[in-house]
């Protein structure tokens, strides 16, 4: 199990885009091959330099492996105080289309049009994943978030697909709620939500909103599920170049993502152990990293977690 801490240190994020024979940007073939073999990956933050000439690395990864679902479980961490306690929800966001299709054009000078794309297949796929996830993780309800009163056709299609899929999963309660109502209720009482499924833009905003509720991106895990059983788990915070290499970083986000990965692979007890150890360490407040309010180094933090895991065996 200490493997995981060493695994974390190994992850460097030194994958850079290279130009393949077709002239399209892609990730190096050996990286792709190893992913195809193992199907599971753990990723730290990847930096995209501005004006690098190639598209964002995260986008490339997403396109290459067709990572269509972004899952972000948001659970309040005991010991890390925020104004919101008892948050326990999961946001599942469609990751390939919607408002982020990237199709934009200038119609005439001064008028710009961005296209939001919603397709039946993608909507059905994400709805199915959401209900599967709810079933596998003992979640009782799924809420579809939309704005179909204004975007009748697009969000209407998304909603219809969600309803159709809900028919086949009778054991899970299905509700639909407008985006603004969700936002309003979320900041007043987040305990009323369980699993939320939504198109790309709303998902982006809501998942970050929920991350803010539990304490920010430094403690939020995230997973991207792709077709063909591929899954990449990552921490969603930035690369923090100012503290890189100084043993000051907070590994919680990456560790919790690793826990998600273990759960995804079916290794539930390992996942539970690491998660409990991590939460215990934070709750004890003795060896916290700087952003959590303590003064310890990253290595001390992880050493404490490792010690607890060993003690548990």
């Amino acid at each position, binding site marked *: 199990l200490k493997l995981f801490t060493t695994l974390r240190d190994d992850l460097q994020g030194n994958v850079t885009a290279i130009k393949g024979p077709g002239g399209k940007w892609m990730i190096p073939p050996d990286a792709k091959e190893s992913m195809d073999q193992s199907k599971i990956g753990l990723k730290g933050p990847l930096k995209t330099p501005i004006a690098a000439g190639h598209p964002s690395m995260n986008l490339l990864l997403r396109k290459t492996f067709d990572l269509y679902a972004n899952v972000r479980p948001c659970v309040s961490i005991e010991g890390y105080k925020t104004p919101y306690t008892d948050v326990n929800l999961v946001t599942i966001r469609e990751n390939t289309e919607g408002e982020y299709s990237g199709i*934009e054009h200038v119609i005439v000078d001064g008028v710009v*049009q961005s296209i*939001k794309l919603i397709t*039946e297949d993608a909507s059905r796929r994400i709805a199915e994943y959401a209900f599967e996830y709810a079933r596998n993780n003992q979640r009782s309800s799924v809420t579809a978030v939309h*704005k179909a*009163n204004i975007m009748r056709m697009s969000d209407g299609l998304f909603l219809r697909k969600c309803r159709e899929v809900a028919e086949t999963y009778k054991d899970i309660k299905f509700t639909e709620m407008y985006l*603004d109502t969700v936002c*309003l209720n979320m*900041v007043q009482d987040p305990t009323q939500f369980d699993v939320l499924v939504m198109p790309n833009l709303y998902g*982006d905003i809501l998942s970050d909103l929920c991350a803010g509720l539990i304490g920010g991106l430094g403690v939020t895990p995230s997973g991207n599920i792709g077709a063909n059983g591929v899954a990449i788990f990552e921490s969603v915070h930035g690369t923090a170049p100012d503290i890189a290499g100084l043993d000051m970083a907070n590994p919680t986000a990456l560790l919790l993502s690793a826990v998600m990965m273990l759960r995804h692979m079916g290794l539930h007890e390992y996942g539970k152990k690491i998660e409990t150890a991590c939460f215990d360490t934070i709750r004890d407040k003795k060896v916290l990293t700087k952003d959590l309010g303590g003064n310890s180094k990253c290595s001390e933090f992880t050493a404490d977690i490792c010690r607890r895991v060993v003690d548990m065996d």
Partner: protein
Amino acid sequence: MTLRAALCALSRAVRPGGCGGLPLSRTLQVQLGFFVCGATIHASHPRQGSTYTNIPPPARYGGRHTVTLIPGDGIGPELANHVRELFWFCCVPVDFELVNVDSSLTAEDDINNAIMSIRRNGVALKGNLETNHNLPPSYKSRNNLLRTSLDLYANVMHCQSLPGVKTRHRNIDIMIIRENTEGEYSSLEHESVPGVVECLKIITRVNSLRIADFAFQTARQNGRRRITAVHKANIMKLGDGLFLECCKEVASGYPDIAFDTLIVDNATMQLVSRPQQFDMMLMPNLYGNVVSNVCAGLVGGPGLVPGANHGEHYALFEAGTRNTGRSIANRNSANPTAMLLASCLLLDHLKLPAYAHMIRRATLSTVTETRMHTADLGGQASTSDVIKSIRNAIQSTGPLTQSI
């Protein structure tokens, strides 16, 4: 004697017995009305070319204003009644022209009547109209139709923490300016191939400049020091990029107001952790929807915050978060604060500050001092309890009120 007073005297002379006497023929009334308006306009403010000065629509007869009232659905009708009764109680010189819009009909006659009425009166107060999103796309949202037909391009919502209302965050004071007509709400959608739907988000230079200018003017009028533009230009480079560019352009003309930008997901995260850092926020339509609802939730919920929609020629006031409240309709449990504060904004717009101040003070004191809270704020009072408390507060200050 001023020209206006002379004309009023003339109209009174022609109608013996004053307001209760024989009515003039309708055409003559209208002509007199227009004459008064015309005289007022030429005598005082030139209307053409002014975009941001709040010129009230001309009063019709003897200083009384006519305002369109659209009750809406859900809790709308009961709250509209409360507003009307309270205005009558306080002898506010406002007459409401009631226009009912039946949102279940697919024909657009009702909403067109409402639009015509607002064009006539210049000002309106409304409840939310429900949109059944299971109807086909040809049935557009009535609320949206109102906003786009009347070109009410700016939505202003002021979220303030109120003492006495229990919330997780204190000392919030954020003014939100949201573009109200274009962006994602253009309702331009098509199904190119069965199963593939495209929805167009339109951003134009003209509208972005307009809303940015409105925001900076409002900031100056209200003593705001900083404006934060919320966007997603890292992903929607052209669309939100254009919006940002226009904001920056306008910002350069207002060196006394600080300007910064924030990506929408970061903005929501900051709002739930540290909302006190924001002063005024400016954004396109959809992000405005999200951020305004988050802020309303932070200060206590949809029952507390009023909203104003401003256009070049018209103004429309409503509850800020535009909820229908279908589940609590007709149960005497809705919170009337938002609607009453919206009516105070209406009175401010009509340049009747004394009445506005009176009603606002009474409403706020009921929430903060008397702590008469409805269910959404965690209390047990009913709507009528709250209204009664507000009436008592108004009566105790001493102005002449109608006997109940």
